[in-house]
């Protein structure tokens, strides 16, 4: 069973958020990378893009399929993980760490507390697996 960092927050669309000051680091969860399979391409937003929570942030493509990634919080993109362009498979190897996708400057820090905590996300995916 995957471990989901307890200091992260999660969405039902399988993104995770880690906040330090007013910067949110965002990625996709271990559940998402496992569902996708071998990742071959990551579609990134441009630095400076302003997004509202729920808007499309980018996309992750695997051999078999493509998945849109949604901004878990509102803000503007300040950094993208340039390592993923040449090594998209990092998302399969280290989805919660080295394979973060983007960093955003938060527009509203209170949004983060509305997201799922690790236990709630873990229960959410466990339910998905058992009903499959």
């Amino acid at each position, binding site marked *: 069973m995957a471990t989901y960092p307890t200091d992260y927050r999660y969405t039902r669309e399988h993104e995770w958020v880690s906040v330090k000051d007013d910067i949110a680091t965002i990625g996709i969860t271990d559940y998402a990378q496992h569902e996708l*399979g071998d990742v071959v391409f990551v579609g990134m937003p441009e630095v400076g893009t302003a997004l509202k929570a729920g808007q499309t942030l980018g996309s992750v493509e695997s051999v078999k399929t493509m998945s849109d990634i949604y901004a878990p919080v509102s803000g503007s993109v300040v950094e993208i993980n340039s390592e993923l362009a040449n090594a998209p498979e990092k998302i*399969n190897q280290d989805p919660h760490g080295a394979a973060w996708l983007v960093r955003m400057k938060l527009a509203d820090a209170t949004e983060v507390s509305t997201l799922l905590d690790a236990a709630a996300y873990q229960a959410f995916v466990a339910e998905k697996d058992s009903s499959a």
Partner: protein
Amino acid sequence: MTAPPTTQLRKTALNSTHRRLGAKMVNFGGWDMPIEYSGIISEHMATRTAAGLFDVSHMGEIEVRGGGALALVQSVTSNNAAKLADGHAQYSGLLNDRGGFVDDLLVHRISRSHYLLCVNAGNQDGDFEYIRAHNQFAAELENAGPRYSQLALQGPKALEILSRLTATQLGALRYYQFAFGDVSGARCLIARTGYTGEDGFELYLAPEHSETLWAALLDAGQSAGIKPCGLGARNTLRLEAGMRLYGHELDETTTVWEADLGWICKLDKGDFVGRQALVDQKARGIERVLVGFEMSDRQIARDACGVSHDGVVVGRVTSGSPAPFLKKNIGMAYVPLAARAAGTRIEIDIRGTRAPAQIVPLPFYKRGK
């Protein structure tokens, strides 16, 4: 539309083995099948460099027997089955009267009065009914799918691995030849055929031996680097090898000329369903042809993406995917003849963005001699 629960899906004899190996399972045309075990890329690469083992028991088998067997096979297929000797197989088309494909298939001649046809999983029952409807030759027909399992062992190490489990002289089987033999105690039709572009074998056997044979092959191939492979890798391998897939490159509206499969059509073998339509089309000329293409940048073309040439939409991608061995993104599509030449620049519509690509010769990948 709600998906049927797994209990309603058809299962091969290896279903619990796949689940025990941790395969990701998928509903494939009503069958509960493994799509991947360790990952599509790892399975694809194992098949190209060592060996991959596939459960393809969902494929259909139709047996044709009797004095009228050859005549029936000749009348419903495009290739010349009369050229086959015992123990030889050929790739062919089951055609409709417009010259389109009802299915593509392999025809194996066991004897002059006994043929085994291997057909696509989803088309098994339809093909059987179609052949039965054309059986004015009193041939005996059997829809034999339920009494066959089929395993495919593919890759440069396939011969070495299979040789450990059978006394049959595999080296004497040339490509597209087959023999009956015992493999690990199971009687098999051992065919040197495959759908990956590698050397390898397809084994037809009784379902009750499948689990033993599967385990024996994985064991015998362990030191050579064998991996169990699912339908995901099966698709990337065949696409990379330029092989057509029914329902994508081939359907009831595509002819052998359009699909660039003229070599499986022998107009001079005698009459067959669709022959006149093909003669007429050859005289008129075709208006579209199947080509391969390669993406210029990192975007991935997918099935059904629009294809443009000179700013005009000319067709749709029939199959599109990353190609793990070639490390490119490739696809096939039907284009007008004006766009068929290698090097022609086209554009693929990927979710609203026009991504550049260019026509390349098929096959994308060909194994070394």
